[in-house]
């Protein structure tokens, strides 16, 4: 099915204090669709003054919001989910046009996962509790949760609505107000989401500001009234965010990417059955979201005795990937999110060739006859070794680097030979091997006989340089609140010191 190109307003504004507010300095920038390189609309080029306005609006709302009951906040999160459900198709089309990804993914993954995420956090806050301990017969210790206050959340461009949800849902559930800065490349979908759900949230509790990193992101990260910053992006900005946070002594959570190994053991080829078919798809998932996923399984490690036969099947599957019209639900892969991302991926393909890696498929841009001005790259597979740059650096494109290993020990060594540790995959029919490898791999997520599943009730985050803290799962609530200890004595007698 082919979906229509969405229509947009000429210009959008920031969402601050429950209203649409023009940027103080009156400046806007153009948002471009990567599908055809055309202008979508103008959005605010916000600066420090706009961040200050948003913080003031959040400040007004914070005390009352922090005192709402869990059931009130839960009800709001459920209403957001219901409103999104009713508008799923609209949001999916907008997300596809803003980001470039294929509509089949926004319809089946981005928006449904976001909806479920709001429901998840709406649910867990109703069922969780603090802790009470009897220290001794007369002393009771209570661990009570309290929101941090106002938080700053900087959203990446690869899953604009889903990543906004991953950050906003737990922050609101825990009783915080938030200032969200959307990504420069994909600012629109969050604004359209708030056109739909804004009336459900008390004014000032959630605010959206668009703009550029050095002009809007920096004053948000440095603002003295911001009590925590959450950021998804690369390591240099991650370090800057930590640096700014150190000025105010506030916590950060960072998700900084990966170079995830996807390990295929010989037993996957023991039978020609549904599981083998699933494993082949598991390798081809490097092309999911055009490879623009922090957990992209961008390194495939294949046991050498099955390499030829397994790879043959995978290459057949990759050659069947369709990528013409991202708005057609039969299309499997869309456009890269921006021009500079497109150029960077092509530079990496060049580096892979210079380093002597063998191109097994793809290795060039894709001439999309429907959208000649869009940013399309063919799914690409290189065969090489783990010391090459294409095995060590996150390309963030549909580029897979494949190598082989002799045995389980070598597989583990190669899997862990990376500065990152976000995602990973293990494919085997041997449960003992699965246990050894899943515990041996240094990464925050090990998918065993599956990949790219993101249930809300499973934690997500990085080891090593992939970041600090976790997202998703109810443990996320504790990244958005203080623990207060109330220590009560029922003893009427003094200590006796004075």
């Amino acid at each position, binding site marked *: 099915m082919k979906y229509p190109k969405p229509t947009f307003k000429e210009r959008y504004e920031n969402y601050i204090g429950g209203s649409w507010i023009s940027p103080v300095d009156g400046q806007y920038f153009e948002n471009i669709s990567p599908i055809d390189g055309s202008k979508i609309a103008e959005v605010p080029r916000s600066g420090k003054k706009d961040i200050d306005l948003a913080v003031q609006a959040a400040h007004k709302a914070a005390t009352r919001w922090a005192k709402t009951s869990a059931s009130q906040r839960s009800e709001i999160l459920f209403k957001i989910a219901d409103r999104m459900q009713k508008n799923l198709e609209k949001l999916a089309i907008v997300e596809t046009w803003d980001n470039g990804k294929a509509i089949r993914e926004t319809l089946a993954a981005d928006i449904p996962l976001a909806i479920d995420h709001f429901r998840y956090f709406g649910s867990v806050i109703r069922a969780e509790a603090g802790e009470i301990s009897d220290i001794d017969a007369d002393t009771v210790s209570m661990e009570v949760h309290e929101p941090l206050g106002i938080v700053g959340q900087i959203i990446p461009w690869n899953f604009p609505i889903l990543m906004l949800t991953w950050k906003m849902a737990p922050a609101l559930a825990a009783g915080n107000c938030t200032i969200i800065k959307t990504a420069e490349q994909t600012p629109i979908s969050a604004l359209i989401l708030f056109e739909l759900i804004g009336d459900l949230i008390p004014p000032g509790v959630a605010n959206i500001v668009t703009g550029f990193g*050095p002009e809007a992101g920096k004053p948000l990260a440095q603002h003295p009234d911001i009590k925590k910053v959450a950021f998804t992006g690369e390591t240099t900005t991650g370090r800057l965010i930590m640096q700014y946070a150190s000025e105010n002594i506030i916590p950060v959570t960072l998700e900084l990417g990966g*170079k995830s190994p996807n390990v295929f053991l010989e037993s996957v080829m023991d039978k020609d059955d549904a599981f083998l078919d699933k494993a082949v798809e598991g390798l081809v998932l490097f092309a999911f979201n055009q490879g623009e996923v922090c957990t992209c399984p961008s390194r495939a490690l294949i046991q050498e005795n099955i390499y030829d036969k397994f790879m043959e099947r995978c290459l057949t599957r990759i050659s069947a990937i369709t990528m013409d019209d991202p708005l057609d639900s039969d299309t499997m892969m869309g456009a890269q999110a921006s021009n500079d991302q497109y150029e960077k991926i092509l530079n990496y393909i*060049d580096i892979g060739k210079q380093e002597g890696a063998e191109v097994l498929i793809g290795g060039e841009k894709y001439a999309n006859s429907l959208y000649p001005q869009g940013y399309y790259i063919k799914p690409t597979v290189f065969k090489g070794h783990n010391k090459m740059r294409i095995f060590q650096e996150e390309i963030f494109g549909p580029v897979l680097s494949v190598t082989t290993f002799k045995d389980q020990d070598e597989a583990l060594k190669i899997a862990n030979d990376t500065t990152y540790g976000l995602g990973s995959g293990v494919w085997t029919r041997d449960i003992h091997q699965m246990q050894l490898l899943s515990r041996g791999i240094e990464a925050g997520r090990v998918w065993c006989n599956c990949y790219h599943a993101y249930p809300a009730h499973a934690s997500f985050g990085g080891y090593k340089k992939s970041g600090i803290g976790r997202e998703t799962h109810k443990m996320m609530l504790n990244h958005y609140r203080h623990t207060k200890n109330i220590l009560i004595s029922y003893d009427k007698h003094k200590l006796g010191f004075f």
Partner: protein
Amino acid sequence: MAIERVLATEKAKAIINKLRETHGELIFHLSGGCCDGTAPMCFEKGEFLIGARDVCLGSVHGCKFYMASDQFEYFKYMQMTIDISKGRGSSFSLEIPLGLRFMLSSRLLDDKEVTQLLPVEMNTNI
């Protein structure tokens, strides 16, 4: 003849000049990972805290160029060129409001060229 590790195209130099007029002395730090990884991030000197494990690969058009030492392991035998492209990066790099993005292209050096590479500096400017 000594070989520089980092070069810049004339277009990139023009943008560096423009940014220097507004912001003063500049440095580059190469990012890693995720959405805007392996991009030369341009900051005012002193904005980004250079760490003890950052390597300085030399100066390019008057700007020191740094990257993390573990990342440098894979750049040892490369010559990089900073170029400029139209586009939007998501980071705090100074050229982004201009609707431009610094990009890095790389060339693998041959064995002879590698021996002529200028040495890197560790722990400088701290």
